[in-house]
């Protein structure tokens, strides 16, 4: 999980200790070619930020945290074992026919957010399809429990003894679980490859590669291939698609869960602002361009990584092998194996984003994700939650508004330096922690709800 995803969870009121008891932070990767290290990379990190660049955490913990969050919220009701059977749409209502083990009934909904996964029933019933590309490379993904003494980093093994010509990825997960992804060769049959004996043999060979000779248990395994697929529109009237129901992204960009969380964060606050009369209905129109744009950005970066991890044609294969071979004696070529370190997508073109003030020489730009920094007794991310925030640098900030909290900040502080602030500078931060606008000299007389929407200026 990447920091913006972590910030998103934090702002959804997760209790830090629960997360921190399990999640493993990391910032380093090693790449090997035929057993020799050809690249060490480090992700940018800073003591000014509360969270580390990456966290490894199994999906069931995220699900558990989400469930705990839902349970605490009196406005949310969880209905288990319910199946969506039919959707009927009219102008101002969506009728969902639901079947559970005891009954069948219809719910009339003002709005629907379909976060029902890669095989989304909502998507199928609405008659929409994901469009894009499937890549050839197939990976088996296996979780192994073992007392393996190694750093929490990302290891990529190219052409190892265990998978000649293939690629293996190894990540440490909480509680001594190691996630191993290994590529299948073109001649390997998928059905045979996911037979337990075959997975055990393959895992044993990978463990021999990394010099682990102890005992291990095979916990779970599955198979996948890289896809770049998405919907043409993430919205169908009163239905919004979020997460895998809207897009399938390759794993190599580490963006699957993070993008899903960002989708939910995005449509969540927009619906809340509209339903509480803090924004007009057209705020909802910004969902597709912002989140579909973010998906296309992931595709652009992930396509490069995917070409390196699973070369799709002879040309990419030959170049990949050449680069790896040269990397054994020349580090310039090892950098070609560097997974793309993507920053979260910038909503520069969104109707909710003000034109960036060009007089700034540092700090997060309009549309970008905010930058964490020390603030008060903790961090800025702790002070931002649930609504728009205006960070005002100076002694006389404007008053809070119903749509926006005001935070007073010192221009002569680490935060002030990182945000290139002086007396009278202000940053407007959206509930999902993107910068809506920033002004070197903020005009307090213009601090009203229209600021939340750049298009209305």
């Amino acid at each position, binding site marked *: 999980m990447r920091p913006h995803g972590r910030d998103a969870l934090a702002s959804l009121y997760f209790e830090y200790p629960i997360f921190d008891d399990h999640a493993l932070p990391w910032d380093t990767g090693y790449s090997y070619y*035929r057993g020799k290290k050809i690249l060490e990379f480090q992700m940018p990190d800073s003591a000014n930020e509360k969270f580390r660049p990456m966290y490894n955490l199994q999906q069931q913990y995220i699900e558990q945290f989400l469930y705990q969050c839902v349970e605490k919220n009196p406005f949310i009701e969880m209905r288990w074992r319910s199946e969506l059977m039919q959707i009927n749409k009219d102008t101002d209502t969506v009728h969902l026919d639901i079947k559970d083990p005891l009954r069948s009934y219809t719910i009339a909904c003002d709005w629907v957010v379909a976060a029902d996964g890669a095989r989304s029933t909502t998507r199928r019933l609405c008659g929409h399809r994901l469009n894009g590309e499937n890549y050839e490379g197939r990976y088996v993904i296996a979780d192994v429990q073992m007392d393996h003494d190694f750093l929490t980093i990302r290891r990529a093994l190219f052409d190892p003894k265990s998978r000649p010509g293939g690629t293996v990825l190894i990540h440490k997960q909480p509680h001594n679980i190691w996630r191993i992804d290994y590529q299948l060769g073109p001649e390997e049959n998928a059905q045979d490859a996911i037979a337990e004996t075959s997975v055990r043999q393959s895992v044993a060979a990978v463990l021999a590669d990394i010099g682990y000779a102890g005992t291990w248990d095979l916990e779970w395994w599955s198979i996948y291939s890289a896809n770049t697929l998405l919907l043409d529109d993430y919205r169908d009237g009163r239905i919004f698609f979020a997460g895998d129901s809207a897009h399938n992204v390759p794993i190599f960009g580490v963006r699957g869960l993070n993008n899903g969380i960002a989708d939910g964060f995005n449509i969540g606050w927009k619906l809340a602002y509209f339903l509480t009369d803090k924004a007009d209905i057209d705020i909802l129109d910004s969902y597709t361009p912002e989140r579909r744009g973010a998906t296309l950005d992931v595709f652009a970066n992930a396509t*490069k990584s995917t*070409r390196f991890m699973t070369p799709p*044609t*002879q*040309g*990419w294969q*030959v*170049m990949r092998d050449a*680069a790896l*071979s*040269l990397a*054994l*004696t*020349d580090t*310039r070529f090892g*950098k*070609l194996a560097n997974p793309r370190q993507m920053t979260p997508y910038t909503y520069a073109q969104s109707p909710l984003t003000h034109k960036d003030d060009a007089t700034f020489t540092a700090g997060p730009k309009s549309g970008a994700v905010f930058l964490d920094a020390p603030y008060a007794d903790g961090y800025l991310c702790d002070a931002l939650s649930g609504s728009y925030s205006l960070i005002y640098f100076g002694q006389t900030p404007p008053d809070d508004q119903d749509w926006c909290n005001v935070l007073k900040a010192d221009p002569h502080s680490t935060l002030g330096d990182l945000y290139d602030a002086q007396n009278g500078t202000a940053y407007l931060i959206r509930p999902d922690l993107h910068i809506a606008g920033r002004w070197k000299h903020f005009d307090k007389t213009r601090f009203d709800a229209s600021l939340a929407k750049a298009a209305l200026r």
Partner: protein
Amino acid sequence: MNQTDLEQVYDSIAQAIDAVGPEKTEVFLAKLSLSLAADYDDLASVIAKINQASNDL
């Protein structure tokens, strides 16, 4: 050459290999090597690169 340009070269050669097809790949790569070497003044460096490329195959 900076990293971005090197990546551009990587992509262009990969696409060219696919465009010329498997039977002509060898000649294509030999032509490319020879013409790049022709722009190089230093024979010893070219020989060192030939040796480097021959290793670790």
